[in-house]
């Protein structure tokens, strides 16, 4: 198969066509091949997966997806994940907006140290925090709730949100603030009516990143939940070991976890590059 890939890449881009197209095709094939393989497996029966080796499903079946979409212990995993991801995104952006404004506009006592300290939380390995989080949230009675996971994910999402938003806000000329204040706008009205629309793309990008990092994280969300708020990622690991490797369902569950991400990417595609540069381009 890898031979086929190698020959297909140059074949598609006949002479004349630039080398860059070849490079991009090869790279994207490299990216998509493992995902395709998962998709391929999710459309096969377990028996076919284990008995025959084929590049596409011989007996096409949607049974694996049906299993997931009809069993509440499976699909509630997606619902749980989406709930805490959305809560986390909302919290992160709400608290990060004023802070980023402060960092981008004013200098105050200890601002540089504070900014670095915030960044260090983005660097903190979740493994360090797993056990203390478990104890903290158990003791305040939040264990196994969506809000616990959302708050825990704030550990790395809030600093990131402040970092990205600060980059975008720096690009807005200060004269706009001053003009608005002269025109008699209060801070709150100026911020929500004038400033936020100006950095709307920045807020969108930040939401994307908060969504992304909360959606992909497993260690903390698994440690902090048991039943009611169990994320899909944890559902996958447990059910698999219990049912003795149900490869087809595992693959289907994996494909379904990619879908929300793909949708979000599609909506922010024009801002991805700038967002990854944290607004600093």
């Amino acid at each position, binding site marked *: *198969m*890898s031979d086929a890939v190698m020959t297909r890449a140059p074949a598609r881009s006949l002479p004349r066509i630039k080398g860059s197209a070849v*490079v*991009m095709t090869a790279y*994207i094939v490299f*990216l998509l091949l*493992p*995902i395709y*393989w*998962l998709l391929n*497996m999710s459309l096969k029966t377990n028996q076919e997966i*284990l008995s025959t080796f084929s590049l596409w499903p011989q007996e096409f079946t949607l049974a694996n997806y049906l299993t997931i979409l009809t069993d509440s212990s499976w699909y509630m995993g997606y619902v749980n994940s989406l709930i805490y991801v959305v809560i986390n995104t909302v*919290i992160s952006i709400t608290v990060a907006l004023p802070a980023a*404004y*402060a*960092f981008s*506009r004013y*200098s*105050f*006592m200890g601002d540089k140290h504070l900014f*670095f300290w*915030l*960044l*260090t939380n983005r*660097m*903190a*390995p*979740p*493994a*360090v*925090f797993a*056990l*203390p*989080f478990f104890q903290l949230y158990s003791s305040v009675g939040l264990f196994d709730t969506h809000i616990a996971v959302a*708050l825990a994910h*704030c*550990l790395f999402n*809030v*600093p990131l949100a402040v970092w990205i938003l600060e980059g975008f806000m720096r690009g807005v000329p200060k004269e706009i603030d001053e003009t608005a204040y002269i025109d008699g706008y209060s801070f709150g009205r100026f911020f929500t009516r004038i400033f936020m629309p100006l950095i709307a793309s920045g807020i969108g990008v930040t939401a994307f990143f908060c969504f*992304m990092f909360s959606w992909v*994280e*497993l*260690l903390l969300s698994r440690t902090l939940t048991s039943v009611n708020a169990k994320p899909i*990622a944890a559902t*996958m690991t447990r059910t698999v070991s219990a049912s003795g490797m149900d490869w087809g369902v595992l*693959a289907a569950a*994996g494909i379904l976890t*990619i879908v*929300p991400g793909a949708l*979000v*990417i599609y909506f922010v*595609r*024009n801002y*991805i*590059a700038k967002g*990854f*540069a*944290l607004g*600093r*381009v």
Partner: protein
Amino acid sequence: MEKTVNQKAWFLVLPVLVLVAFSAVIPLMTVVNYSVQDTFGNNQFFWAGLEWFSEMLHSERMWNALTRQLMFSAIILAIEVPLGIFVALNMPKRGFWASVCLVLMALPLLIPWNVVGTIWQIFGRVDIGLLGYTLEQLGIPYNYTQDIFAAWATVVVMDVWHWTSLVALLAYAGLQSIPDAYYQAAKIDQASRWSVFRYIELPKMQGVLMIAILLRFMDSFMIYTEPFVVTGGGPGNATTFLSIDLVKMALGQFDLGPAAAFSIMYFLVILLICWVFYTVMTNLDKRGVVQ
């Protein structure tokens, strides 16, 4: 931009401060608390001073994990950064295909980390995985659960697959910000492709590349889920990186004292390296390389 001095700005930062204090400082203090105490069960704790720290400093297990971790981070940075730049240089500049490339490249970044692990675990299996099967058919011995080299190769390729796009997208954003006039000037001077890269593109990408290296370093240094799903830290301890070792110690064996001391030293190492990066970055900021 000149900033005004305004101490009231503290009020704007307050919500973040409260939230992060709750989700970072309290747990961190718990860790510090454990790291200086010993317990014999029944919630009875005894002051142990710096005993755990000295124990961990002399523990071969931790040094081995740290060496593996540094090696892993170094390898993936050495592959992902040049490869990411190379891909970014070859990306279409604008139009339909640019969007297609962006969307497809960002796809691996949004896959939950354990699914990334699962994908590669399946992909590399000799019986049902495309990669493993192909290598087997070609007569190359490949078994990531038994062979140390194969395990490392799988984990490294997986990380390259997962994160190279991040570097590429950043470098691409940097390239997009270069005005066409620069290229035209280079054309008039008959600059070679290499000197265009070396004297125009690379300096302009410097800022975003620092961010890329910083993010990649941080995330690779705390990598846990992906290698854990694929190899479980094995064969033996060959791919037991710092986080995997820590979780084994803290949640598996419940050795709270040593695990806490381990955590703190782990955190300090990351902090130190990131401080260096951050200082370099803010210096670049000041020189106006990053706008």
